[in-house]
């Protein structure tokens, strides 16, 4: 094989950049052992890369150096005592001195390092706690916000509904029929208004005063015409002073409300008549 061609192929550079696959790496290494030219070229290229890196770089900061050596501190082997101590100390003062020397700096470094480690762990735990607290609050806030957004949506819908009803009420020719409970035993002070446009056949109910019912009963509105009473919807006693739309009615002489089992009945339970109002011609 032609060594020069191999060197020229650019493979050695990629080898140094760590970009060759396992097979090609092995190939370069084997050839470098066999051909000194290739080995030399590799070394020269590495030198050049190092020189290039050295020239283009700047030194990392002192802090990072400190951090690195602090991280490595525990891993260093204690240094071998290099000083050749004189085997026979001539004076008695020596032993106390050697003791002072023996508390070698790595011990205090180790203590300092473990202190730092303990403090760091404590700080980590503290901040982790803070973090979770904050996250919980954040999630709670998000939920609150969602609830508020839902409420707002509901209110908006209600407003639009009311607005359109008001539009129809103003635009149409509605007659107001007052229904009262004075003449019936059920609720003497009950008062509900019906708004009826006989041309458009639209009926709205506005509750003024009406007791609330237990869950198994409903108020039902009746239109009483030539063919007798016709149920035209259930009235919600809770929605006071708003317009509740009922079913269409073309012809009626009076309106009445009775208490019926949940969901309403086909014909009114007359002994539970709550309010009645006649249409004034």
């Amino acid at each position, binding site marked *: 094989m032609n060594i020069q061609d191999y060197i*020229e*192929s*650019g*493979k*050695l*550079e*990629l*080898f*140094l*950049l*760590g*970009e060759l696959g396992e097979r090609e*790496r092995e190939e370069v*290494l084997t050839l470098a052992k066999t051909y000194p030219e290739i080995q030399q070229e*590799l*070394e*020269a*290229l*590495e030198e*050049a*890369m*190092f*020189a*290039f*890196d*050295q*020239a*283009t*770089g*700047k*030194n*990392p*900061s002192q802090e*990072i*150096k400190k*951090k*690195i*050596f602090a*991280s*490595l501190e525990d*891993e*260093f*082997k204690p*240094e071998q005592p290099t000083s050749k101590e004189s085997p026979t100390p001539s004076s008695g003062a020596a032993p106390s001195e050697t003791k002072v020397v023996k508390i070698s700096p790595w011990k205090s470094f180790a203590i300092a390092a473990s202190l730092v480690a303990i403090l760091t762990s404590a700080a980590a735990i503290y901040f982790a706690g803070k973090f979770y607290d904050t996250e919980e609050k954040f999630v709670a806030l998000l939920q609150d916000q969602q609830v508020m957004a839902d409420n707002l949506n509901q209110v908006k819908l209600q407003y639009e509904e009311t607005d359109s009803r008001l539009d129809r009420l103003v635009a149409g020719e509605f007659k107001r029929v007052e229904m009262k409970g004075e003449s019936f035993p059920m609720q003497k002070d009950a008062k509900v208004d019906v708004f009826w446009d006989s041309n458009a056949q639209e009926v709205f109910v506005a509750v003024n005063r009406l007791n609330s019912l237990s869950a198994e009963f409903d108020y039902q509105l009746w239109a009483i015409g030539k063919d007798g009473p016709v149920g035209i919807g259930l009235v919600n006693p809770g929605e006071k002073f708003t317009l509740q739309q009922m079913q269409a009615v073309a012809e009626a002489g009076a309106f009445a409300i009775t208490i019926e089992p949940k969901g309403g009945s086909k014909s009114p339970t007359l002994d539970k008549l709550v309010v009645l109002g006649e249409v004034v011609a």
Partner: protein
Amino acid sequence: MQEEEIIAGLRGQDRKTVEYLYEKYSRALFAVICRIISDQDIAEEVFHDAFIKITRKINSYDESKGRLYTWMANICRNSAIDKLRSKEISQSGKTNTIDDFVYGLESQSGTQEHVDGIGVRELMSQLNEDQKFIIEYIYFKGYTHSEISEEFDIPLGTVKSRVRAALQVLKKNIDSI
């Protein structure tokens, strides 16, 4: 210190050797990282981790598979590339046009400082356009040669020979700076 001594000292977890290693190589190794990561703080963080990795993994370093500096530089380079990809900044980086990048060289803080001032600009100016392009992408943006080949539709062989040519020029001129 000879390379063998350094390796032996590192394996013996000798503080003096690690200090020597730091003095001799930190600048160059940090440069390898800074080329790929422009943010100074992140680059230092990567350098911290990579340097510790070097001292800890020295037992898995095999002298017969390449020299010490190459091994260390590859650890730094790979750590930087890993970081870059984990941050998902590489995607935006790689879609930059060459012009953006060359222009970015001038304006990005950090890069300019060490590209300027030491004569590297002059060194780079010795390269022709093709070589400069290759060096910028491999050295400064952390591309592999096959990524360059794919992304810019340059045959793999051409990428290789351009890497070679560029490094030859740098090798010749490195003493002049």
